[in-house]
C-alpha cells in the first residue's frame, strides 16, 4: 500500500514548467530520498505534497484516497508534516510553547496547563537528545537543537509523513547521528519520510528509495542501493556517464595559458563553522578556475567567504600578494574582488533602476570628488561598458527589469568590471538565461580572463564548468575532494570525483 502518492502531476509558473508529469509514491516506513539540482522541481513537488501549491494537473492520493489540501494546515492536520530548511519556529516563544503551539494541554478550567506542558516537553525532547530548559526562549538554543525541536514538533502531531528538507545542513556531526537515530525510530513506527539532501553519504546511509528530478521531470525512481553513486550523479546532472558529449553546448575557448605563476587570488585553509573545511586553491591572472560539486557542497559559501559575505573562522585570503584579513564586503571590493551573486534578482541588480544607474552604483564611490560625480564621466563609463559587453537595450535609461535575463547579467557584469577588479567571482553566471545569451556571456567570461583577470566560476552545468575552466576544484560537503587539471578536466572525471565514496 502506498501512503502518499502523486500521479502525473504538473505545475506551471509564469514562464516555467516547474513540474512536468511527475509521479511519486511513498510507502509507510520508507525513507525516500528526493534529489535533483537547483530548479529540478524538488521544492515544488514538496509544496504540492504539503498543500502549499495546488497542482495544475495530476492527482494526489493519501492513504489510498484522493485528497486536495487547500492549505499547509490541512495537510498537517491530515498527518503530513514538513521540516523546512530554515527552522520554522517562533524564536521569541519558549521551547515548550513552540512544541505545543495550537495544541496546548489544558486544565479543567480551559487554561493552558503550563506545568504539564513543560513536563511533557522535557520528556519528549529528551528522546531527541535535547536537554535544555524548556521554558527558555527557543531563539536562545543552538540551531541544531532548534531543528530537533522542529522535528519533535512535526512528529508530535501524529504525523504519518514527515518531509525533511536538507535537515542536516545546520547540524553538528553529533546532532546528525541523533537525527539518524530519530529517523530510524520513525522508520520502525511506519512513518514515511521524504528526505531531501545533497550529501551522498547520508543518502546512502539512511534512504531506501530514491526519486531523481531534473528540469521538472522525473528521471529515475527506484531502490537506492541498486543505483551506483556515479550513476546517481549523472542522472541528477543530466549526463550519461558513458556518453559524455564533449562539445557543442558551450563556447568557451578553453585554456588560457596563465601569464605568470603568481596567483592573483590565493585561498588557504578557509574554514567556516561546519560548512567549509580547510579549502585551499589559487587563481592565476588569466585563469578560469571552476568550483565543482553538487548543490550544498560549499561552492557558493566559498565564493561568499572570499567576498567577505560569509563568516570565516580560519584561513587566509590573498589578493595579488596582499593578505585580506577579516574580510568584509567593503574590504574585498577595495582589494579588487568583484562578485556576481548566485541570485541575480535578489542580490545583484536593482530592477527598478536604469542600466546607467545600475552600472553607476558601483563606481560612484571611486569616481566622486568631494561627494559629487560628473554626469559626463558616468555617461562615458556606461557607454564604454554597454558597447564593450554588447548590452542590447533601447538606451542607457531603460529599466533593467525590462531587459532579458542575458542582458541583465551583462549589466551586472558591467557593474562589476567598472570597479576595475583583479578577481572576478561568478556564481552561476548563465542560470536562467536563454541559449543564445548564454553563449555570449560565456564568450565574455572567456575574453575577460584572456585580458588578465582571475576568474572563479561556479556552475551547476557540468558541461559549462568543464569547458569554461582551465582547472576545476571539486568540493563535497564543504571540503576540497579533488582538483582536475589539464586533460583531466572532463565531465566524466568531474562526475567520478563528485560521486566518490568517503573523503
Amino acid at each position, binding site marked *: 500500500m502506498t501512503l502518499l502518492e502523486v500521479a502525473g502531476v504538473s505545475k506551471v509558473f509564469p514562464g516555467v514548467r516547474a513540474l512536468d508529469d511527475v509521479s511519486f509514491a511513498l510507502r509507510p516506513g520508507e525513507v525516500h530520498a528526493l534529489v535533483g539540482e537547483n530548479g529540478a522541481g524538488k521544492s515544488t513537488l514538496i509544496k504540492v505534497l504539503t498543500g502549499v501549491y495546488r497542482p495544475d494537473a495530476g492527482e494526489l492520493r493519501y492513504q489510498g484516497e484522493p485528497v486536495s489540501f487547500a*492549505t*499547509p*494546515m490541512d495537510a*498537517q*492536520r491530515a498527518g503530513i508534516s*514538513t521540516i*523546512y530548511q530554515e527552522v*520554522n*519556529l*517562533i*524564536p*521569541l*516563544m519558549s521551547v515548550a*510553547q*513552540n512544541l505545543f*503551539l*495550537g*495544541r*496546548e494541554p*489544558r486544565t479543567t478550567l*480551559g*487554561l*493552558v496547563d*503550563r506545568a504539564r506542558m513543560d513536563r511533557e516537553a522535557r520528556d519528549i525532547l529528551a528522546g531527541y537528545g535535547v536537554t535544555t530548559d524548556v521554558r527558555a526562549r527557543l*531563539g536562545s538554543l543552538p540551531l541544531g537543537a532548534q531543528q530537533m525541536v522542529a522535528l519533535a*514538533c512535526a512528529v508530535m*502531531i501524529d504525523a504519518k509523513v514527515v518531509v525533511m528538507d536538507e535537515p542536516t545542513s545546520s547540524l553538528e556531526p553529533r546532532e546528525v547521528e541523533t537525527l539518524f537515530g530519530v529517523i530510524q525510530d520513525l522508520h520502525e513506527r511506519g512513518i514515511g519520510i521524504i528526505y531531501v539532501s545533497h550529501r551522498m553519504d547520508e543518502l546512502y546511509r539512511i534512504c531506501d528509495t530514491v526519486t531523481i528530478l531534473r528540469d521538472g521531470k522525473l528521471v529515475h525512481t527506484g531502490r537506492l542501493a541498486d543505483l551506483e553513486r556515479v550513476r546517481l550523479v549523472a542522472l541528477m546532472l543530466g549526463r550519461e556517464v558513458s556518453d559524455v558529449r564533449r562539445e557543442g553546448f558551450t563556447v568557451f575557448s578553453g585554456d588560457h595559458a596563465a601569464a605568470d605563476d603568481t596567483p592573483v587570488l590565493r585561498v588557504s585553509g578557509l574554514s567556516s563553522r561546519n560548512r567549509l573545511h580547510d579549502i585551499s586553491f589559487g587563481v592565476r591572472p588569466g585563469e578560469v578556475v571552476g568550483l565543482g560539486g553538487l548543490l550544498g557542497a560549499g561552492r557558493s559559501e566559498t565564493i561568499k567567504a572570499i567576498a567577505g559575505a560569509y563568516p570565516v573562522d580560519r584561513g587566509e585570503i590573498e589578493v595579488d600578494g596582499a593578505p585580506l584579513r577579516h574580510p568584509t564586503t567593503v574590504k574585498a571590493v577595495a582589494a579588487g574582488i568583484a562578485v556576481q551573486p548566485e541570485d541575480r534578482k535578489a542580490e545583484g541588480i536593482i530592477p527598478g533602476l536604469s542600466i546607467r544607474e545600475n552600472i553607476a552604483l558601483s563606481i560612484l564611490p571611486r569616481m566622486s570628488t568631494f561627494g559629487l560625480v560628473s554626469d559626463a564621466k558616468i555617461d562615458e563609463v556606461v557607454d564604454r561598458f554597454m558597447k564593450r559587453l554588447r548590452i542590447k537595450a533601447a538606451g542607457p535609461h531603460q529599466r533593467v527589469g525590462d531587459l532579458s535575463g542575458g542582458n541583465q547579467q551583462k549589466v551586472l557584469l558591467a557593474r562589476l568590471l567598472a570597479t576595475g577588479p583583479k578577481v572576478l567571482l561568478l556564481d552561476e553566471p548563465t542560470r536562467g538565461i536563454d541559449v543564445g545569451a548564454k553563449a555570449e556571456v560565456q564568450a565574455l567570461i572567456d575574453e575577460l580572463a584572456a585580458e588578465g583577470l582571475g576568474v572563479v566560476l561556479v556552475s551547476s552545468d557540468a558541461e559549462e564548468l568543464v569547458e569554461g575552466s582551465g582547472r576545476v576544484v571539486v568540493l563535497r560537503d564543504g571540503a576540497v575532494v579533488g582538483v582536475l587539471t589539464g586533460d583531466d578536466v572532463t565531465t566524466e572525471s568531474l562526475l567520478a570525483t563528485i560521486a566518490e565514496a568517503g573523503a
Partner: protein
Amino acid sequence: MTVLAVAQRRAGHAFQRQGALAVLAVVVLIALAAFPNFRSPDNAATILVAAAPPMLIALGMTFVIITGGIDLSVGSLYVLGGVLASWASQYGFVAAIAVPLAVCGAIGLLNGALIAYTGMAPFIVTLAALLGARGLMRAVSDEGSTTYIVQNDAFHTLGTGSLLGIGNQVWLVAIIVLLGMVVLSRTRFGNAVYAVGGSEDAAALMGVAVRRTRIGVYVLSGLLAGLAGTINAAKLGSGVTVLGAGMELDAIAAVVIGGTLLTGGAGTIAGTVAGVLLLGVIQNLINQVGDLNSNWQQVISGAFLALVVVAQTYLVRLRRT
C-alpha cells in the same frame, strides 16, 4: 560569551520585562519624599481613577502590538463610545453599556477583517477607522454641538461611586486587566497572539488560526476602547466630544514603555500597567508643581518613550549577537 556579556544580556532582559516597573517605583519613591500632597490617599485614588480609561485602551493595544499590529482608531472609538453611552443611557443601564460596546466592537471587527483578509497595513486600516469613527461621532452629536447628558442613575454611579474607598471603575478596570493577563498568558488564544507576532508564517504552519487571532485582537481593542469611553462618560455624566484626540498615541507609548516590542512577539500586560501608571504619575506630579505647565508632561513622556525605544533596539541587537 564573556561574563560581562551574560550580565549585560540578563540586565537587558530584566529591563525589558521590569524596566517600567522599576522606573515607576523610583519615581513614586521620589514623589513620596518630595511632594507632601502626593502622599495623601486621595491623590492615589485620583491617579488611579484618571488612569482607568487609558489603562483599558492600552490593554487592548498590548494585544494588538504583540501580534505585530497597531490600532490607531482607539482614540476616536473612546470618544465615540462615550457619546454613544451617554445617548443610550436614556434607554437604561444595559443599553448605556451595550450600545457603545456593540458599535466599537463592530468597528474593531471591521478593522481586523480588513487587516486579516486583505493584508492591508494595520496602520492604514486603523487610520481610516480613526477618521471614520470621528465622523460617526460628529454625526451623532451634530458636529459636536450636542452634548448628551447621562440619564441613568445606576450608570452614573458606575462612574462616580466607590467601594472600600476606591472608585468603582478602578475595580472594574482591575478585574478586566487581571482577566486580560490570564487570557494573554494562560490561554491558547494568548499563545496564538504571541505566535502571530513572533512569526506569522511559522504560526500558520504549526496550525495557529492566524486570521482569527488577528481579528480577535482588533475586536478586543475596539471593545476596550469603547468601554473606556463608556466608563469615562459614566464618570463625567455626559458624552464629551472634544476629548480623546491623541489617546491612541498615549496608549502606544504606555505599551512600548512597558516593554512590549513594537515589532511584535513579546510583551506583557504587567509592563503595560506599569507604563500607564508611570505616565499617570508623571502627569500628577507636574500638576503638583503649580508653576509648571502641564504640557511638560508630554515632554517627559516623550523622553521616556525615546529612552525605552533606544533600549529596546539595543536589546534586540544583543539578542542577535
